[in-house]
């Protein structure tokens, strides 16, 4: 028996039509929906900058972090955004190494999501230091204080290296992928300024077979380097917690648990963004098809059950360890003062994605959009549960307390979405949102006589 492959592009297209379709959003004046989106996102972004300005000016006291909960919104939201980024690298690098051809049409935008999510995330530890004007102390540089160096034994410093390496490699990978497409836009440009800008971005690319040979090699190498890198990043983020001695944090399950959660939340964000891109650019529906969305939804459900397994496993080990502090930390999570956040987390991450057992739900845009929003909410609460519930009641009851959430926490949390969405909307307008040079070779997949190389 032979099962026929679904075409990756729903309508049979010529090479020229593919170029025209993908370049169109870059070349035409954007529509009203895009402007409305940009104005809203920008308003939120400006609000974010103002909120950060107040926190910088008046100090960290404006936010809820205090004794005993010394890690709050900044760390929670940092982990949240870093996690979002991981799905982009999974799609662009890991699925590339596995020769998954369906990744081609969503890889560029997923990678853009990674870059912007990491940029958004990177701001939070800088706010969290409390004295952001001294943040350059995080970097080991020769100085006149000894020289005094950073402490390389600290997971927090590993994180500085992991996140900055991840940001750098992601940006380079994303940019190198776009170079041939910039050349396409340059050669189509009718206006001098556009020709100049995209000419510079394209590095003078001309598509020689010898150049392609080196280019493809480097692209594969970058994918091969990004794959262990992305796993290392969230592993090291989890070390920030796991290397401490706090009950609820000091567990060996953290690295795989964090990586699975990161991929889960990132795919949630991919669905949120892709449904919006499909609405905003209807011609992209032929490239980002329902089949793509269905596969992503399957991954969401699978990784959702993986984090569900991690929740259960943590509980089991807390009991099995016989450690009273560890047991208490988990009972307190599920039934203590922050039980509401724990059950939001479980419902959003484990229960709600179960709807994807049904094919109709996996292929329904409204349903997957709503589920993806719940996934985003659930994964933010997962980090909130991990961070806050472990800190607020640790060992001695004299040392217990609640997290004092303020309006500034709310402002900075929601404001960060303004930054992310502003960057994303501008990206959709000035960069080719689907990889032109990668989609063309797969245009025959699923059609007669096409995709013969498997």
């Amino acid at each position, binding site marked *: 028996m032979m099962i026929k492959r679904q075409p990756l592009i729903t309508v049979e297209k*010529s*090479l*020229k039509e593919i*170029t025209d379709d993908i370049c169109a959003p870059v070349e035409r004046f954007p529509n009203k929906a895009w402007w409305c989106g940009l104005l809203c996102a920008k308003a939120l972004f400006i609000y974010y900058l103002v909120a950060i300005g107040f926190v910088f000016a008046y100090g960290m006291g404006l936010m809820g972090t205090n004794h005993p909960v010394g890690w709050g919104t900044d760390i929670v939201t940092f982990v949240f955004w870093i996690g979002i980024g991981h799905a982009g690298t999974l799609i662009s690098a890991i699925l590339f190494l596995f020769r998954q051809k369906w990744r081609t049409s969503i890889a560029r935008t997923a990678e853009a999501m990674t870059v912007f999510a990491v940029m958004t995330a990177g701001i939070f530890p800088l706010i969290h230091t409390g004295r952001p004007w001294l943040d350059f102390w995080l970097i*080991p540089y020769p100085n006149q204080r000894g*020289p005094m*160096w*950073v*402490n*390389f*034994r600290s*997971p927090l410093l*590993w994180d500085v*290296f*992991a996140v900055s*390496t991840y940001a*750098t*490699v992601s940006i*380079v*990978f994303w940019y*190198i992928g776009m170079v*041939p497409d910039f*050349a*396409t836009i*340059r*050669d*189509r440009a009718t206006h001098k300024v556009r020709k100049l800008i995209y*000419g*510079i971005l394209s*590095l*003078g*690319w*001309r*598509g*020689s*077979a*010898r*150049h*392609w*040979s*080196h*280019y*493809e*090699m*480097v692209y594969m*190498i*970058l994918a091969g*380097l*990004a794959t*262990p*890198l992305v796993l*290392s990043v969230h592993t*090291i983020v989890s*070390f920030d917690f796991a290397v401490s001695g706090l009950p609820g944090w000091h567990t060996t399950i953290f690295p795989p648990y964090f990586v699975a959660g990161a991929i889960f939340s990132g795919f949630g964000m991919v669905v949120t963004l892709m449904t919006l891109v499909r609405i905003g650019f209807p011609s992209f529906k032929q490239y980002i098809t329902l089949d793509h969305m269905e596969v992503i939804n399957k991954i969401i459900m699978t990784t959702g059950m993986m984090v569900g397994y991690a929740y259960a496993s943590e509980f089991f080990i807390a009991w099995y360890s016989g450690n009273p502090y560890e047991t208490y930390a988990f009972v307190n999570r599920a039934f203590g003062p922050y039980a509401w956040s724990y059950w939001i987390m479980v419902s959003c991450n484990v229960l709600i994605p179960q709807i994807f057992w049904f094919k109709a739900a996996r292929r329904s845009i409204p349903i997957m959009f709503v589920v993806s929003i719940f996934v985003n909410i659930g994964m933010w609460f997962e980090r909130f549960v991990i961070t806050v519930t472990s800190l607020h009641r640790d060992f001695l009851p004299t040392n217990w307390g609640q997290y004092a959430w303020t309006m500034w926490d709310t402002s900075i949390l929601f404001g960060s979405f303004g930054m992310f969405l502003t960057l994303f909307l501008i990206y959709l307008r000035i960069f080719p949102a689907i990889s*032109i*040079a*990668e989609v*063309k*070779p797969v245009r025959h997949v699923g059609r007669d006589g096409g995709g013969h*190389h498997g």
Partner: protein
Amino acid sequence: MAKKMSGVLGLWSDESKVLVAARKVREAGFKKFDAITPYPVHGMEEAVGIKRSGIPWVTFGAGLLGGVLGLYFQYWVASVDWPINIGGKPFFSLPAFIPVTFETTVLFAALFSVAAMILVNGLPAVNPKILDPDLTSHKFAILIPNNDVGYSQGKVEDLLKELGADEVRLFYDY
């Protein structure tokens, strides 16, 4: 990059035809010819006779360098230049130094590989000559430079026409 070349080019609009043509041109004895395609065409490297890229060696060397430098720097900082007793741990705490060593390995490997690709491809090219704007969209070309083995303008033009080129013309200063 090499100095400017001139010669004859043929244009195609079909991927499979240009692939066959490239193979035939090589079989006709030409060595320095090149193909221009809007996307990487599967099998073009064999057809044109391009050797496997040597960039993986750069990646390997750069990764090794990054790893050694990263680890050495941490050793030097923690054991030589500013040794501080932190929690009774040894000055050279190897396990704790592995994450940063890994990151510097990946960083060096990635950046050097990309730099190598840009360098060997002669990029960035300032204001490069574009032979046909459709070559980055939906057309394919084969260029045979006039310094290639056994080049003669009439012969090359006939060969490219015979191989089904939509258009055959001279090019200069590419």
